[in-house]
Structure formats: C-alpha cells, structure tokens
C-alpha cells in the first residue's frame, strides 16, 4: 500500500458549487465514498454503519461497495471505537469513526481527551493521529436529554483536537475530505436536522480548508456569528430583518478550532455590532470564546453596542415538543434579539 495517495492530495479548494443539489447526508456519504475509493488507508468504523447504513443513513450502501474490512460494524463500545481510530491512525491508517449520537461521545472521552489529543505532544511531536470522529449533535427531533446534546465546546477546550461544525451540504463534503487529509484528530460535528437540507455540491472531490470562516450573507448593520444549524436559522432571521431595513451579516466559522479570528474581526469592524448564536447551552459555551476574541481585538474600538449571545437555555433538552422548541434559539428569537441590537435597545 502506498504511503501517500496522490488522488487525495492537490484537491480543488472551495471550487464553485455548480448546480447539482444533494442533501447534507448525501454529501457526507459522497465524501466518505470517494475517500474510500481512492485511499486504501481510509476505513470506516462505528455502530450500525454497515447493513443498517448508520442511524441517520450517512453510510448507507458503503458496506456493499467496500466490504466488511473497510466498513466495520462495532459492538456498543464507544471507548473501543475511539481507541480503534487512535491505534490505526498511529500506525499509518486514516480511520473515520462514527459516534451514533454526539451524546455517546461521553463514553469515549478518556481516549479522545487524554490519548488522541495529547499523544503527539507527549511524544515530542514524533507521532501523529490522523483520525476523524463524526457525530451528529443537536436537538429538534424529540429525542430528549440524552440524544440531543451539543457538546462541541468541550473539545474546543482541548489542545490537540480540531473541531469542525459544517452547516451546508457544500461545506460538509469539503470539510470532511479536508479532515480526512488532516494529520490531526478531528472532531466532526454534524447536525441531525441538517441531514435533509439540500444545497449545491460539486461531484468531484474538493476541500474546504479547516480554519476558514464563510460569510453566509453580507450586511452592514450587525454581524451574526452562528454555528451549524443556527446558520440556517440566522439566515432566516436575516431575511425577516431585511424586511425592516436591517441588513445582518451572517458569519459561519465552520471550524471552531482552528478559529478564523480575522474573518470575525473584519465583519465586526464593518458592522460595529455582534450577536453570537449557538444551540449549545450558553454557560461555558463557544459564544463566550467568540465574544472574547472580538473584544480582545481591534474590533473593540468599532463596537457601538455590547456584544450579545443567544444560546441554548442552561437546561437539559426537554422531551415535550413545545418545551424543546423553546430550549434553543429559533429564527424568531434570533430576529428579535438582532433587531434590538441593531436599534440600540440593548
């Protein structure tokens, strides 16, 4: 087996999206299929990813095409899945693991935080752990408190890990391929409610570089920094605000670590106002980090109002549909908060 596979290198970087539309989950599957096809180092491992096709269908059909050796169904052993990825990555492979629900990554934490993240550093930079661990987070499916977590910020707090959180079909394909190519352990956070969303995606392989934010909508009156599903809701809110003459700029960091500070700062310097939106609970959430990066930068001098956060309530996700709806930001609450900020009411 060759050490380096040219097919997975020199990929186009953020090419034009084209006109073909597929869903987010199809884009995940296409990236996995293409990586498996061109690089013998890549294999998939996780619970029910084979015949079942993954709890959300991300790996449907891949077992048939690539066989049991490369699409590996595991027992219910999340520490084992993480360990399997680490050991394989340390010895020349490019594993892509799946944690069925992000909540279950709590059972893998020792392996991810104390092993995957630290091995390279502890060994003086002489080892690398090029693995990707995919996991769907987020609420909105009525799955209640143990199947709806948004735990991304735990991983942002661990040097040695990268954290990726794509919001569009285009980004999820390009970021997944970039993550597979990356020589570091990558926590790849998908969202259950995004799986069925559609968008244009090039058929050929390409990458979206880790650490580069995307301006999802341009505007002059305020900046909304949003992650994952909240990007869609922020865009919906921005459309409503536009009807009132408020032009919101929506910035999607796409990767939480490394974080594209420059893009955030540039946007806030332009608009003078910032609202940070995420689904995870507010206290200790990623929003605190974004706010700090903004106020510690030269953007501080451009601020015309306090930087605001809109995030999940500090509660577990409730089961009841209406309570669940009110537990996390929605387009209407984002619009309301943004309107107040733009009008100087906060």
């Amino acid at each position, binding site marked *: 087996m060759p050490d380096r596979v040219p097919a997975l290198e020199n990929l186009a970087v953020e090419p034009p999206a084209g006109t073909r539309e597929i869903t987010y989950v199809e884009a995940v599957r296409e990236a996995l299929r293409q990586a498996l096809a061109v690089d013998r180092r890549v294999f998939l491992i996780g619970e029910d990813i084979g015949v079942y096709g993954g709890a959300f269908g991300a790996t449907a059909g891949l077992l048939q095409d690539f066989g049991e050796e490369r699409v590996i169904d595991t027992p219910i052993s999340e520490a084992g899945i993480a360990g*399997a990825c680490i050991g394989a990555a340390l010895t020349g492979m490019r594993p892509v693991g799946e944690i069925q629900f992000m909540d279950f990554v709590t059972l893998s934490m020792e392996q991810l935080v104390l092993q995957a993240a630290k091995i390279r550093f502890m060994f003086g930079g002489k080892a690398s752990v090029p693995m990707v661990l995919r996991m769907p987070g987020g609420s909105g499916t009525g799955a209640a408190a143990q199947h709806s977590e948004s735990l991304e910020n735990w991983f942002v707090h661990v040097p040695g890990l990268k954290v990726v959180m794509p919001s569009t079909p285009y980004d999820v394909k390009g970021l997944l391929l970039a993550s597979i190519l990356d020589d570091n352990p990558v926590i790849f956070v998908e969202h259950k409610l995004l799986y069925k969303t559609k968008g244009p995606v090039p058929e050929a392989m390409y990458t979206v570089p880790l650490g580069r934010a995307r301006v999802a909508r341009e505007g002059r009156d305020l900046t909304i920094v949003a992650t994952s599903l909240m990007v869609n809701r922020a865009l919906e809110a921005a459309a409503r605000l536009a009807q009132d003459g408020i032009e919101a700029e929506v910035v999607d960091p796409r990767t939480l670590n490394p974080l594209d500070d420059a893009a955030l700062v540039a946007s806030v310097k332009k608009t003078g106002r910032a609202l940070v939106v995420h689904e995870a609970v507010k206290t200790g959430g990623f929003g605190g980090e974004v706010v700090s990066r903004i106020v510690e930068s030269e953007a501080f001098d451009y601020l015309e109002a306090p930087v605001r956060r809109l995030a999940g309530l500090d509660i577990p996700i409730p089961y009841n549909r209406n309570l669940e709806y009110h537990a996390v930001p929605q387009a209407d609450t984002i619009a309301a908060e943004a309107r107040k900020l733009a009008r100087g009411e906060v």
Partner: protein
Amino acid sequence: MTQIKPTQPGPAGAPFPAAWGPDGAREKLARMLLIRAFEEKAEELFALGRVHGTMHLSIGQEATAVGAASALRRGDYLLNHHRGHGHCLAWFDSDVDAMMAEFMGKETGYCRGRGGSMHIANVDANNLGANGIVAGGVPIAVGVGLSIKLRQTGQVCLVGFGDGAANEGAFHESLNMASIWDLPVIYLCENNQYAMSMPVSKAFNIERISDRAAAYGLPGVTVDGNDLVAVYTAVAEAAARARAGQGPTLIEAQTYRWRGHSKSDKQAYRTRDEVKEWQQRDPIVRFAAALGLSDGELEALRAEAQARIAQAVAFAEASPEPAVASIAEGVYA
C-alpha cells in the same frame, strides 16, 4: 469471595530456549540488570532532588518486560503502561541515553522532555508509548491490531497493563473487539498484586485474571512473571497464534513491585515480610542461577549495567533543557 491465587515458582526446566545460545541468554540477563540499574538510579536521582515530578518503578518485574520483548520481532508494536521503564528498555533499538534524558526532562530525550517517565515512546521502533491512564493503551491496541490486519503486514501488537487496568471498562471493550475480529494483539496483564493500594485479593472475585479471557472467547494463561523463560514462552505462543490469524491472547504474568506505587507511597497496605518474601523470588537472581553464574559473575554484570547507567546520566545532565520558545511545538501536526 474467590481470591486471586498466586502462582508458585515452577519446576526447573531447561534454563533457556536453545535458540538463544549462552550469549543470547546472558544478554537477556544483562538487559534485566540494565533496567534494574536504571530504576535504582532513577530512585536515587529523586531522593537527591535532581528530578522533578513522579515515577513508578518496576523493580522486581524485570523478567516480564524482557521475557515479552524477547519473544517478538523488530517491527512489532508495543503499547505500554505507566510503570513502563522496563518495557521501554527491553524493546527493540532502545537507547538508554534517550531514556535517561527523557526521565530528566531534556531536549535529547525520546519525547524532547515533554513526556517524562509516564509517557516515554520510541515511535521509530514502533514503541507507541507508555501511558499515564490505567488501561489507556488497551483500546488503542484494537486500532493497532486492525491496522495490521488491513495492511496485512504480519506484525503483532503487545499491550502491557496492570491488574488495576483489568477492572476498567475499556479493558472489556478492547478484549471483545480484538476477539470478534481475530486481531493480532497480545494482552499482557502484569499482575503485580496491587493497584496502588488495592490488593488483587479484594479487587477480583475470581482465581485468575486470565479467567476473564473466556468471557471474550480468547485463550487466557497465567504464568510466573518472575520467570523470564515462562513469560517468553507464553508470549511466543501468543505471537504465533496472532501471526497465524488466530487472534488475541490474554496473558497474566504474576509478579510483584518491590517499591511503592509512586514516590509518595507509605505502603501501609502491605507488610515488610510480604515484600521480603517476594524479594526472595528476584527474577534476576533466579535467571542468573539458572544460567549457572557465580555471585562474582553476576556482580560483574551488575557493575557493567550500573556503569552504563552512569554514562546515561552524564549524557542527560550534559544535554540542553528544552527551549521555552519551543513550548507549543507538537500540539498540532
């Protein structure tokens, strides 16, 4: 409650496998002496306040490390535990200077002084590192085994851990996964009778830790871990099975740590008599006797090992400290 049964020294058989030859056998003795000398020096350096941090000494357990490595091939993989100086020094292409330099936190150490005693690795020799987390390396062995199987290289992965690790959940996930996929992994449980202060007699309700293998459908064997040849033989058999695609083996090597858990241990959980009794089973003295060495010959070899360690200390002391400007290197590739 059922209690773990200690092994008794086995009957004297052939002193060593014929393939080693007398010189090869002497080398293994010398390797055990080097480990002993390294750790005695480590202890001394701590006592003198010349080393920072903590350490976990494997004095008394040298036969397990040397016996296991002797049964494997260059190119095989090692995942090691926190009491792992012995395994590192016993492994292929080990460099005692780099070991001592790492122990003393120097830039010339295996891990550039970033890892220290608990995280020594020699990645170039497929020594994938010691681990500060009990059972931390055990799930990683599944991945190494999978990688070997996918790459079809005929290597094996030796994963060493202690009796304490056998009660971590990760141990069970790992053995099961390696078993269902017939992975080329050798699980070497170094039962040194205590998980810090918790004796195996209170931590298990079974007679042998190796009995747990049956639960996952793999062979389990218990050997006298202070008998270099017994460890060698068990690991060689496990390696042959693994290379033949027959999957993992769990080996319990019963041994004893002569020193405390770490440098702060007052050892209130055991008696001096118990320690003395185990010291009568010194794996080095036993193997030297099996080779027919006189006391004088053994002492000459011991002095040679100590001299080598003194050189390593001199190398480490002359080595530079890591530059503060390099503090963040190696976090990301």
